[in-house]
């Protein structure tokens, strides 16, 4: 299945084969990563456009552009797209697929066919989700949480969307499965567990969550589908079911999944910061193991989404307590990142600034999470726009910022070209400013008591909602500018060297862009771990290798 290439090993993986079929049936992890990237980018634009329109609707009280039903369908679709089609696959399926095998010193993931299959599942799931826009009784209006009994009785096309989420769940499971096997089996000789790059650790912890939490939500959503088709009261109290049980099962998955979103992002930060500071990471083991600790503890906090459902006091205390415990390994990571900047030799690059912006946003996101975790305060801010701001700070300000940062960091490696740094700074500035204005205002209006999923609101909330909407305009502009810069540079940018940022992990030892089988020489590993900058000279002697592009 693999030995059909004949060309010389220097040729980039783009050129090893041509034609559409060579892409959509490829087994090459790099091409699959790009397939994911392009599909995710499309859905990201759709999801963002929906978010943007919602913000316009909320510019003033009263209906501006649509009726309530449409608004409800919009935030549902926005949420489903952003969660299932964008952020869960984003970093693992794009950068994990592209970089993990190279960073481990191998030529592909362990199960390449399964890898392709999971992309196809992703496409099928996406088509199913989009199909609800076109036919059926209109897209679902339940919110991405699909709470019973509303999801059981709603006359919109909920079942199709649920099935789509089910299929997408399996795509995510298979990606995780593949990474676990890859990490166990394909590390280069001499790369022990604690010699792996931290991105690999992040992916490993993530993969376990994908593997062990997703099936539960899968079967739960399937139960809702069956319930809708057969009229059985599994979760519908009118027929004797228990809606709280649905929430338990849903959050058993959907809390751990927020760490699916953030752990790989934290892994990438742990790559960018040492490279930018040109020194070894501070507290390697602490960062690696805290990923595992977060993944593990994350399984036992799901009840914090249900504090106001009449949950038993005993359970509420346990869930609140464990929620606070998760904050500790996260704090350890943040401290170690900042300590890594200490006494470094720091090169300011767009990718470093995206990372710093991430740390700032994520601090806000994480610290607002503490207010959610504390019982008394959660009762007040539960289901208000404060929560909406909390999770945009963690997901957008966290994961998506890192996604953008990673695009800038690995851009030369993936496309073999450089981008316009000045434009990159401008885009970052606009996005950062717009983002904080928009969600900062939502934090405040949430504390004042504006519930979420509100099509219309009371006049006292108007002021802050206006500010928030204005923020979204800067955000839009910044993101469009960034996309413009990257797309143009991928075709017209200056050619990139092998190692533009002087990194020492293995991906900087292969040509930019890498050849089909990644390595043209044996990877150089340091005894002292993955971030030993004393071997930089040895790595960069391959820099002279001619790049054909």
């Amino acid at each position: 299945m693999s030995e059909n290439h004949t060309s010389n090993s220097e040729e980039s993986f783009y050129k090893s084969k041509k034609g559409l079929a060579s892409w959509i049936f490829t087994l090459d992890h790099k091409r699959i990563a790009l397939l994911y990237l392009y599909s995710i980018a499309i859905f990201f634009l759709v999801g963002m456009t929906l978010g943007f329109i919602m913000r316009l609707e909320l510019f003033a009280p009263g209906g501006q552009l649509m009726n309530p039903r449409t608004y409800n369908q919009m935030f549902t679709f926005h949420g489903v797209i952003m969660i299932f089609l964008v952020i869960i696959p984003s970093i693992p399926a794009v950068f994990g697929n592209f970089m993990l095998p190279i960073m481990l010193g191998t030529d592909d993931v362990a199960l390449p066919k399964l890898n392709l299959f999971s992309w196809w599942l992703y496409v099928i799931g996406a088509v199913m989700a989009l199909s609800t826009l076109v036919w059926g009784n209109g897209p679902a209006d339940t919110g991405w949480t699909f709470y019973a009994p509303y999801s059981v009785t709603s006359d919109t096309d909920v079942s199709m969307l649920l099935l789509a989420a089910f299929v997408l769940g399996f795509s995510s499971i298979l990606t995780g499965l593949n990474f676990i096997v890859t990490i166990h089996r394909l590390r280069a000789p001499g790369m022990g567990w604690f010699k792996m790059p931290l991105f690999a650790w992040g992916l490993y912890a993530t993969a376990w969550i994908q593997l062990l939490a997703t099936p539960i939500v899968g079967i739960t959503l399937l139960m809702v589908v069956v319930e809708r088709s057969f009229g059985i009261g599994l979760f519908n109290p009118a027929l004797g079911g228990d809606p709280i049980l649905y929430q338990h099962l849903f959050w058993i998955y959907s809390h751990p999944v927020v760490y699916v979103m953030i752990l790989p992002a934290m892994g990438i930060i742990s790559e960018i910061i040492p490279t930018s500071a040109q020194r070894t990471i501070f507290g390697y083991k602490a960062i690696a193991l805290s990923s595992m600790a977060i993944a593990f503890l994350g399984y036992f906090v799901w009840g914090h989404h249900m504090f106001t459902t009449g949950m038993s006091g005993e359970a509420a205390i346990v869930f609140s307590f464990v929620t606070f415990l998760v904050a500790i390994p996260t704090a350890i990571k943040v401290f170690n990142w900042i300590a890594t900047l200490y006494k470094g030799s720091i090169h300011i690059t767009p990718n470093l600034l995206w990372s710093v912006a991430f740390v700032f946003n994520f601090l806000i996101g994480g610290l607002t999470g503490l207010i959610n975790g504390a019982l008394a305060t959660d009762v007040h801010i539960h289901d208000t726009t404060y929560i909406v701001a909390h999770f945009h700070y963690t997901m957008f300000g966290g994961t998506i910022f890192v996604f953008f940062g990673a695009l800038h960091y690995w851009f030369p490696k993936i496309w073999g070209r450089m981008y316009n740094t000045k434009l990159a700074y401008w885009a970052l500035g606009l996005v950062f400013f717009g983002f904080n204005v928009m969600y900062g205002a939502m934090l405040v209006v949430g504390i004042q008591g504006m519930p979420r999923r509100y099509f219309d609101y009371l006049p006292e909330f108007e002021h802050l909602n206006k500010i928030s909407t204005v923020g979204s305009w800067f955000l839009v502009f910044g993101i469009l500018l960034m996309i413009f810069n990257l797309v143009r540079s991928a075709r017209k940018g200056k050619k990139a060297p092998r190692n533009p940022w002087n990194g020492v992990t293995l991906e900087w030892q292969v040509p930019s862009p890498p050849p089909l089988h990644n390595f043209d020489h044996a990877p150089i590993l340091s005894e002292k771990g993955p971030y030993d900058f004393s071997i930089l000279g040895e790595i960069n002697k391959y820099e002279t290798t001619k790049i054909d592009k």
Partner: protein
Amino acid sequence: MEHYKVPNSGHNRDDEGKKMGMWLFLFTEILLFGGLFLVYAVYRFQFFDQFKVIAEHMNITMGAINTVILIASSLTVALSITAMKKGNNKLAVLLLFMTLALAAGFLVNKYFEWTNHIDHGLFMGNDVFNELARGEGMFLFLYYFMTGLHGIHVIVGSVLLAMVIYKIYKGKINQPNLVFHENAGLYWHLVDLIWIYLFPLFYLLH
């Protein structure tokens, strides 16, 4: 420069990796059913009496026969792998055919059980079913859902085993190269494993 070949490659044959993949997949299957077991547990607790009443309708003999059939099929699969490891292809194939026969027996048995319930009106949408107390309908629904899902797994497992037979004939599975056979076997044992829990939960606790 000479094309450098990485020592651990995603394109080398890696039986251990494939086996690990299978185990991991089985974990997801366990948790898939796990979600249903959680639902079962909660409703057993909430509808204690109704569950008890309706469980009377279950036929323990049929359940027991199916249990024995599945255990026996697990045995034949295990034996066939042992035979294959010892290089005895013929015996392995014979044992696999026996497994398929047992699987068919299981499904036929299950079919009679279901049709029997349906004849008694104990199925969704039926009048008798609609008259049942709430917890009782829930029990039956879980029964159909869980054994139905399990039945699908039996079918998938049988297809996998049939593929093993085919591959043995084609010589694609042989003494040192039998990871596909082993993985199909693992899957089949999982099917057995789940039934081991379904049997007491639906038949014995009345």
